[in-house]
């Protein structure tokens, strides 16, 4: 009984080598073409991720050399009172993004799909803010939000008090989300619009024959048809807003009074203001774990969507 087993065990490596050589011969050109992309992927995506994990256990000093500090960086993160504030602000920012911004592209996509004329023109107008350079956007909205800017001028005309959109901590995050919604809803709208326009027309015609009005058509045909896409973009928006820092940094530097200090901004400040790269890496690892979980959910959702 033992002999054949031995023989097959000796044969196996040789067979594997032959199979590997055949594989390489067959796919040589394909592998060669893939190589640059794989190298770029490893160097610029996975190497920083792996290095981030490693640095999170070191006191990083690029000149005098790194020093292993075990879990100290993670302890420093958990001891830092700003982390709690930043997590709370990030969750608030994600929540506002959903409440203020998430439904806007869906609404516009449905409205535009219902237009009989000027559909292309309205689509371009709605997408236009997306191509605005962010520096122009921030300057523009700082003026909109100015105490004597157009919004406050309107409020004063209506006999209302001025709103300090930027310097009132109650308003600062809301103001940023409104601005970003205005700029970014066009991209989401195009995706929804494409999905809506791909819904077979005869479904709508059948609904109309059954006596469905516009609201019933939207409720019973449009929304169920794009349900999978809504779920996917919901997760993608959560992932994107959980990393939000750009407008918070550029417009208010995390203020006033830390009201716009998001988790990602705190990472940037730890790394580049305090030059505490180890602690920043530890914060990044913690964030990676949370976002990784979200990405898995997104993957499962998109898989389910494909199967459906």
């Amino acid at each position: 009984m033992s002999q054949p087993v031995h023989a097959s065990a000796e044969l196996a490596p040789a067979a594997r080598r032959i199979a590997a050589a055949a594989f390489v011969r067959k796919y040589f050109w394909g592998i060669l073409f893939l190589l640059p992309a794989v190298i770029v992927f490893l160097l610029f995506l996975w190497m920083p991720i792996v290095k981030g994990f490693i640095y999170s256990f070191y006191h990083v000093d690029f000149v005098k050399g790194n020093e292993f500090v075990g879990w100290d960086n993670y302890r420093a993160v958990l001891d830092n009172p700003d982390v709690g504030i930043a997590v709370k602000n990030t969750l608030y920012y994600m929540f506002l993004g959903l409440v203020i911004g998430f439904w806007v592209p869906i609404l516009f996509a449905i409205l535009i799909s219902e237009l009989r004329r000027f559909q292309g023109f309205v689509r371009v107008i709605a997408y236009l803010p997306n191509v605005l350079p962010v520096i122009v956007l921030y300057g523009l909205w700082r003026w909109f939000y100015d105490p004597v800017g157009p919004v406050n001028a309107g409020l004063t005309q209506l006999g209302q008090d001025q709103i300090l959109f930027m310097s009132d901590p109650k308003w600062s995050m809301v103001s940023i989300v409104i601005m970003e919604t205005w700029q970014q809803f066009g991209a989401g709208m195009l995706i929804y619009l494409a999905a809506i326009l791909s819904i077979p027309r005869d479904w709508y015609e059948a609904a109309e024959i059954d006596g469905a009005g516009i609201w019933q058509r939207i409720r019973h045909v449009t929304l169920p048809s794009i349900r999978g896409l809504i779920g996917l973009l919901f997760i993608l928006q959560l992932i994107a807003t959980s990393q939000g820092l750009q407008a918070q940094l550029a417009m208010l530097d995390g203020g006033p009074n830390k009201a716009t200090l998001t988790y990602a901004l705190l990472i940037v400040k730890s790394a580049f203001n305090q030059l505490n790269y180890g602690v920043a890496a530890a914060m990044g690892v913690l964030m990676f774990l949370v976002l990784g979980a979200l990405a898995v959910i997104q993957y499962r959702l998109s898989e389910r969507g494909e199967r459906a």
Partner: protein
Amino acid sequence: MRKISAISLCLVLLASLLAACGGGSNKGEQASAPTNSSTPSSSGDASETPKTAEPVTISIYYPNPDQTELRAIEDAKIKRFEEKYPHVTIEKSDWHYNVNEIGIKMAANEAPTFFNTWATEAKFLVEKGWAADITELWNNYEFKDQINPILQNQFIIDGKVYGVAQKGYVTTTVVNKKMLDEKGAAVPSYDWTWDDMVNTAKAVADPGKGIAGIAPMGKGNESGWNWTNFLFQAGGDIQKVEGGKVSAAFNSDAGVKALEFYKKLRWDANVIPQDWALGWGDAVGAFAQGRTAMVIAGAEGPLDQALNQGGLKPEEVLVYPMPAAEKGGKHTGVLGGDYLVINPNATPAEQEAAFNYITFDYFSEDGLKSLEDNIKKFKDEGKFYVPPHMDYFNADSDYGKKVQDILAKYDNVYRYNAESNALLDGKPEAQYNTQDYYGAMTNVIQEIFSKKDTDVKAKLDAAAKTVQEQFFNAIKVQ
């Protein structure tokens, strides 16, 4: 044929990728090559052209693309320098010092051979090992005794020299006199107080129209920097260094007094911008646009913007010393300045070439000519030239007098008031973790500006505790 082209393209991409990743080490090898061969030049007279010296390449601090006049001046200087030192090749670097980028620049060995920095950064750069010890070059420099000692001393630490002073300032309050006149507000005397500042601001402020009396900065570390002037006027300090330890000192009675003054500006007098979250650029921009009558900064920046972008005339913009807390008190302002620091990663030969370049126009006739050409150029373009408030040389030195003679010849030069200058009292910033302290104070100031009933003392104590525990406790004073 198509396959071969595709393969070639792949290989080129791969090679360029690997070249990009491996560039750093090559640079290091090239940089270290001339070390030995060029050493002899350092023993000779620095002013003599070392004709036999090995080639040296240095990258220099070069003005931004929008600073066309300054670029033209620098280009002329490069040409003259390369004529005198033919073995030195100059590469231009328009990277300008940034606290958030210096760590990365040094780690990647991408910082230029010399770069600009500020007075706050001396201790930080030296402790990090990011500023070369240039004591030997300094000791051999013939004009070292004529350099303005108030400025230069900021970069002499424990007897070693780590940077060369360019220009400096004592923080001032720049006042838009035109706005005061239009409102019929009295122009205060230069020997003014906190009360005079509030009254002047009150006379001009018109919150309904978005006009502020004064715009103390409320965003970024500059917010803490602005407030520190008032801390100093009230007699306070940022930190104390005793027994080898650094302890936070800004939560003193003076700190409380200075914060109470900010509270008064915001809530009682209501003279600061409604949208007070302004950084340096925002506040100075608001001043140039006539949206605030006063701004607190080194005078040069606000003057340049107000005259050359805001369309104001020199007589309409006044530079005041910071106000005294009370009548008879000192007009203390934070002493700041611009410095040039040599990269410690550079070889000795490169460091010497960089030092020669930095001081090339100092105390020279070419420097005077360059200054005059600059003023003329500004005049031709209908612009005003704003000279540094404090220069690298002593104002009453022979060279200082020559400069004053040139400035006096032109009507497009802004002239600082002698009475105001006499009242200036510059106080250097803290030695340790200054930016971290500014950051902590920015949070306190934002709290004061956003909540009327903030407990000033409690907030100051909390900020002092944070700064102490996070930063000062880790410092071991040598």
